[in-house]
């Protein structure tokens, strides 16, 4: 047993000195290889983390959201619809939500204005998301002036800033008292933006939604499971789009690696010939080359993955920020929480280590089974 291990170690010794003889070329290969693994692993870790974060946060979203649709578009929904629903079995709470968008030309950003009765804000008091505070340079006690529905500027006093750890959902939020929001947007009493329903038993949600569409035919219920599915699909889609963009780089690398691994240089063929001439068997040559490929690809996998981990979870995935940001001015500053999916890691390992290692073996085997004399020539 010890002897077998020692034998493999001699092969590794030889492989490493052989790699060191072509140091520049092999270091270049290792760098490009690690970079490819780094990009793939970064996309994988980032999207997985966002997907999990969305699922964890939005699991508390309302079970059913009811929108009123007028001429194919969402419209304000009368509060009377709450009474028209009556008492639906399984619904533990129902209330109206009042919210809307406001475009701020000062920083060319869209805000989401919403009522928050739980906070009991004064008529001119607001709570703002950390994204707005950062973009407008606001702190508690400062005033924010916005142009209201009537064209007149309305000044609001910042009572506080929403916690930074909620930025993924609250970056662009402005919370205010209901009368202030109605006055600002010019929404009369008795109208809401949409309604939310809480259903305690998840098995009753679909039944309640069916009853709603019968009772209120001009409404559209949106279920929490649809919201969660939307986010899952979005991140799958994004992962797919980035992978497609990476495909060019990936193919270039495949050609490069294939060329490097499968086409033996004259020097390498000569080396194999000499090894055979001094008594190495075909199996020994293949083992030596297997270690060469294995050491490079395993190093590239580990280096690439570790760099991706640092990039995503310690540097906030800064390379992806421009892609995610789009044209949004208020991009939430958030640090993705580390999530590692064992299956994804195993897939990445399999596809980054095995193809290269195997690609190195075929030409070596071909060279190693030919006559040493003809190979050396």
């Amino acid at each position, binding site marked *: 047993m010890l002897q077998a291990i020692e034998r493999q170690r001699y092969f590794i010794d030889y492989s490493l000195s052989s790699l060191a003889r072509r140091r520049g070329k092999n270091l270049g290969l290792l760098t490009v290889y690690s970079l490819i693994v780094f990009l793939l692993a970064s996309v994988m870790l980032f999207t997985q983390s966002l997907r999990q974060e969305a699922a964890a946060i939005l699991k508390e979203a309302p079970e059913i959201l009811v929108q009123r649709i007028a001429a194919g578009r969402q419209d304000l929904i009368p509060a009377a619809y709450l009474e028209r629903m009556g008492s639906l079995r399984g619904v533990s709470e129902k209330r109206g939500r009042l919210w809307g*968008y406001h475009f701020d030309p000062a920083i060319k950003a869209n805000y989401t204005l919403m009522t928050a009765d739980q906070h009991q804000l004064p008529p001119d008091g607001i709570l703002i998301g950390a994204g707005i505070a950062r973009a407008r340079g606001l702190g508690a006690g400062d005033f924010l002036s916005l142009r209201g529905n009537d064209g007149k500027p309305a000044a609001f006093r910042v009572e506080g800033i929403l916690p930074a750890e909620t930025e993924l959902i609250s970056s662009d939020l402005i919370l205010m008292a209901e009368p202030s929001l109605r006055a600002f947007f010019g929404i009369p009493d008795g109208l809401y933006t*949409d309604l939310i329903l809480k259903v305690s038993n998840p098995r009753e949600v679909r039944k309640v939604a069916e009853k709603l569409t019968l009772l209120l035919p001009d409404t559209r219920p949106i279920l929490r499971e649809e919201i969660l599915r939307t986010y899952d699909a979005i991140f799958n889609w994004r992962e797919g789009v980035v992978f497609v963009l990476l495909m060019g780089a990936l193919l270039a690398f495949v050609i490069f690696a294939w060329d490097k691994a499968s086409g033996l240089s004259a020097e390498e063929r000569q080396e194999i010939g000499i090894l055979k001439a001094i008594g190495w068997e075909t199996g020994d040559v293949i083992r030596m080359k297997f270690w060469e490929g294995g050491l490079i690809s395993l190093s590239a996998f580990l280096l690439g993955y570790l760099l991706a981990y640092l990039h995503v979870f310690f540097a906030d995935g800064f390379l992806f920020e421009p892609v995610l940001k789009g044209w949004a001015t208020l991009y939430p500053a958030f640090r993705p929480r580390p999530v590692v999916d064992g299956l994804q890691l195993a897939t990445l390992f399999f596809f980054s280590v095995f193809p290269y290692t195997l690609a190195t073996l075929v030409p070596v085997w071909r060279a190693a089974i030919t006559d040493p004399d003809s190979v050396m020539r």
Partner: protein
Amino acid sequence: MVIGGSIRERVARPSNRAMAWFLGLGALLSVSLAHALWFGLDGADPGHGVELVRELGLSDLALFTEARYTRHLSLADSHAAFQDHPLALDHFPTASLAAPPEHLRNPHVAGD
């Protein structure tokens, strides 16, 4: 290169250096996995975010704030990309990242 040679010989042996290199990288990989388990979503409480979602009845992430149908992806209507006026081409980069509705990508699934 003999078994059990002097320390200098052992350090100089390439396979020993390779072993140290991989042990180091392996240790870092284990640290990253432990870090993910410790600070990841499984171990940590999503905290205030969940409270705020429950309290305000929020339905979406504030990831793409450039347009209303990208800010509230789950509330946008089925033809959100062209909702501003007829034949309005969608010009926000986010829309190229967000998936089309399920019923368009997978017609076999009954539309919700």
